[in-house]
């Protein structure tokens, strides 16, 4: 027999749990369906029973304690703390190490000002319904944030040209690629510019990224939300004034409202009854563009000392294996061509250098958790990644030992890797192997994400809302889409009650 709820949320990732937290606290009867065995989406952390913590999306948070959701849902009382490294990166080239401080110090004052300006200007726009980019950037200019507007109009190539050193240019180009802009001539746009800026302001969740969705879950569950796992919704159809959700295990659930956090392609071309989907949204779903570049991510747990910076403070990440921008271009060209790059150059993060909680203290320490990301083709040219994953992981380790001699004295205790396609297998919504639900290019952000008909989380189907990474703002880790969807339902349903917060 179908059970009735006021709000059903499809997807138990950070946005789904955020929406659940807000709505349950507003007194709504909320149920969440997560198809995986755990909640948290791509903010999952694993230890695989080893003494090390591995994060799928380690520093994907653009904001920490200043995220409004953190304060409004009281997350710091529910087991969340943030770490904001003062050194964002160290670029290691044949000529030495170049330190880039938090916010981009070391990239040149012009670039630094742009990054700071867009960080200030953009945040409010990300927590309210979207507006067209021209109007947004025009407002920035009128409020004295012209540098932010200028950055939105740059491309990776023109941005990098503003840096005053080759390592700075390299770092900027890498940050753009990591933010979804591998094409050097693609305009960043307002949201893209913001994401590049935040690459230089990394935020970690203490103890592992999963502590954040764990706290969101606790906030939601403590207010009465039912948050199910291993529960896959396969179809949503109209049923009376609300909807009927069909689950893979045969369950049928009825709900007056639905928030879907899946990507637009899945939502509009598979999940929602085609009879309910306007042709424009079906077309938007079919044409939805994913990121074009993904990483091979290797995790290593060691006993012994990791590399230590010669400078005052430990960088959050070390960019190694590229001497010039051209090396990065060659690497990216190989990946685009479906080939393995000459060597697995990329970014090393010694997670435990910033957060000791992410490895055991011992016995027989010190123990450290390392993470290495290198861009790699979605398909392995020599066959499947399944058969080649261990070999490439070993190649990454050899590369790191070559780049960082300290590692040669460490004992490698545990090693895991996600090949570019693995993320997609875990999370169907991350189609191209990155945690973003769709490329953040200007044509897919703000009021165009995923389509002007539903960019504000409401859709043309009354009672059906979008709340995941495929709707504005589309920046992983902001929790904004979940909050905006909850706000829209609260307004539409006139929910005013505040559930008793335990």
């Amino acid at each position, binding site marked *: 027999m179908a059970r009735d709820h006021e709000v059903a949320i499809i997807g138990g990732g950070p946005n789904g749990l955020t929406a659940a937290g807000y709505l349950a606290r507003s007194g709504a009867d909320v149920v969440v369906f997560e198809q995986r*065995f755990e909640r948290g989406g791509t903010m999952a952390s694993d230890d695989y029973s080893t003494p090390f913590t591995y994060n799928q999306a380690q520093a994907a948070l653009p904001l920490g304690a200043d995220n409004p959701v953190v304060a409004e849902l009281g997350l710091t009382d529910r087991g969340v703390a943030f770490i904001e490294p003062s050194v964002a990166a160290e670029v290691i080239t044949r000529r030495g190490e170049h330190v880039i401080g938090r916010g981009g110090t070391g990239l040149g004052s012009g670039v630094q000002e742009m990054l700071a300006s867009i960080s200030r200007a953009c945040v409010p726009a990300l927590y309210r319904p979207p507006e067209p980019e021209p109007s947004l950037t025009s407002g920035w200019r009128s409020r004295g944030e012209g540098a932010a507007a200028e950055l939105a109009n740059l491309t990776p190539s023109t941005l990098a040209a503003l840096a005053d050193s080759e390592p700075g240019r390299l770092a900027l180009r890498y940050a753009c690629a990591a933010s979804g802009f591998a094409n050097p001539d693609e305009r960043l746009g307002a949201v893209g510019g913001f994401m590049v800026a935040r690459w230089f302001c990394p935020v970690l969740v203490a103890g592992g990224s999963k502590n954040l969705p764990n706290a969101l879950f606790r906030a939601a569950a403590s207010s009465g939300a039912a948050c199910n796992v291993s529960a896959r919704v396969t179809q949503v159809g109209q049923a009376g004034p609300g909807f009927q959700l069909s689950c893979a295990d045969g369950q049928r659930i009825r709900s007056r409202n639905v928030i879907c956090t899946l990507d637009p392609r899945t939502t509009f071309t598979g999940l929602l009854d085609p009879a309910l989907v306007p042709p424009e949204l079906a077309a938007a779903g079919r044409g939805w563009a994913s990121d074009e570049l993904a990483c091979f991510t290797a995790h290593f747990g060691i006993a012994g000392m990791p590399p230590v910076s010669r400078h005052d403070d430990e960088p959050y990440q070390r960019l190694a294996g590229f001497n010039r921008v051209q090396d990065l271009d060659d690497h990216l060209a190989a990946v685009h061509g479906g080939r393995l790059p000459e060597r697995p150059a990329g970014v090393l993060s010694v997670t435990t250098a910033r957060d000791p909680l992410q490895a055991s203290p011992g016995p027989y320490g010190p123990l450290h958790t390392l993470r290495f990301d290198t861009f790699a083709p979605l398909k392995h040219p020599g066959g499947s990644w399944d058969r080649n994953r261990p070999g490439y992981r070993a190649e990454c380790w050899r590369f790191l030992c070559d780049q960082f001699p300290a590692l040669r004295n460490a004992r490698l205790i545990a090693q895991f890797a996600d090949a570019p396609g693995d993320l997609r297998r875990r999370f169907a919504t991350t189609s191209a192997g990155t945690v973003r639900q769709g490329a953040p290019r200007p044509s897919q952000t703000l009021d165009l994400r995923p389509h002007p008909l539903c960019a504000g989380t409401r859709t043309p189907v009354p009672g059906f809302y979008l709340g995941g990474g495929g709707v504005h703002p589309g920046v992983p880790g902001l929790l904004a889409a979940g909050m905006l969807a909850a706000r829209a339902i609260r307004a539409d349903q006139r929910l005013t009650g505040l559930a008793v917060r335990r």
Partner: protein
Amino acid sequence: MGVSFAGNSPVIADLELERYGFRFAASPVVLATTYRDGTNCLICQEPERTAENFARHSSRDGQRMLEIQSRVDETMVEFNELSSFSPHPDPAKLPRVFDLCAYAMDFPVEQMMEMTGPELCERTFESDACRQILMTPVAFWEHGAPFARGQGAFGTTFALYYTTGVGIGGNEVQVDALTRCFLHHGGQLWTSAAVEEILVQSDRAVGVRLSQRSLYPGREVRARLAVICNVGVPETLRLVGHEVMESADPLLAAKMRYWKMGLRGSHVTSWLLDRRLSWKSADFDPLIDEAILVYRAFDSWEGTKRYMVDMLGNDTWKASGQLMEFTYPAPADPTSASPEGHTVLRAEECFPYALHGLGGPRSWDGPLRHKLVAARNAMMSQLVRDWDGSVLDYYDWTPLDNWRLNRSAKFGQVVGGDFTEDQWILGRMPYRMPIGGLYMSNGVWPVGLSWMAAGYNAAQVVAADAGIRDQLWWTSRPCEWYSRNLPRLLARDTGELRRVSEERRGQGP
């Protein structure tokens, strides 16, 4: 991942865990052993099916096992209630527990009291294979010390009172359902919150102080009613402080100080396979391919006894490769396979931690671990069809890693302390400690497996002390939920995975 023993637990019904998302599945095979000679032994849900398998080794053993399993089924609820799901140490319960075991095995209690585990096996079965499966759980150093008279025989019998299953989506679903239940009823939960000290004032535990290595460094959390300590004996002593414990109970303090944990550290390998595995011994009895808990359990009965002697002699290298526990959810849980049909097999061996003569404990980080895994792989290729072609990747963790991960698992010991003659039922820790308001739920009897018994018992004691034990909803009996729901727990459809795997096996690596 692993197998869950939750089926026995009254917690599922009392706390309505299914309402909080708990999904469980069982296999028609409760426990299996597979042998290098191509045979196997199966203890099945149906006693008749068990007897059929045992009879392939010896018709007399088949008949005896049919009688034993029928008597075990008959006494399942009462045994579990007295032995596992009520607080210990309680000498008043033991006579009935022993009576039930003696009845199940068809020996007088007095004879059981004098028998070791191996002796019980020899006097019960005539075939090596059937003796080996009966000995296996105790040889794995759970439930009792095999060579201790009485304890060995009773411990061997206890293992027959288990049920096995898997949580759908992984056994984390069990913890998840408990968490949801706890939060729903107003609980508050922190992770990354290690405790550094149990605060004791005026001979009473009044709260805890968090470690500097935690999310809230140094924060004190007050507890009006109780502190339940689940971190094992050595850590509890450290958190309370030796002097505090000694002044409360010098004998117990001494016992805690010399608590033995070095015998059975877990060394685990998890393999990623490109298909559902098939045991070579499936030619002998194909039902083994439906098993979720399988042991590689020795090559002979003499080898079984030699292994236990080697373990007691701290000879890790000699003991390796003889006894492995395989947990494999794929036959029962369709969600445990990837869409491509990839599955995970987990193997656990237990070893003495000390590595005497092998370089000492620090050698767990060195080449030894790789040698042990290589030996394990060599053994797997003798037990599983097309093993080398099906393995995509693997990882392992040693007793040292286990301890590093989990402070309660000192020396990699995950069941709360070794089973030695003096660390059995009456020799385990009390749930109610001699410090007011302090309770334990690890290092107690029974072992801290996934069946939620120790937590359930600790809650019973705390609730009784607080005068809140009598609740209308707190009335379920062990095993009843499982037996009532068994047909539906067995009904998972894993046909698609089987089809994909057969296809892959036909294609070769």
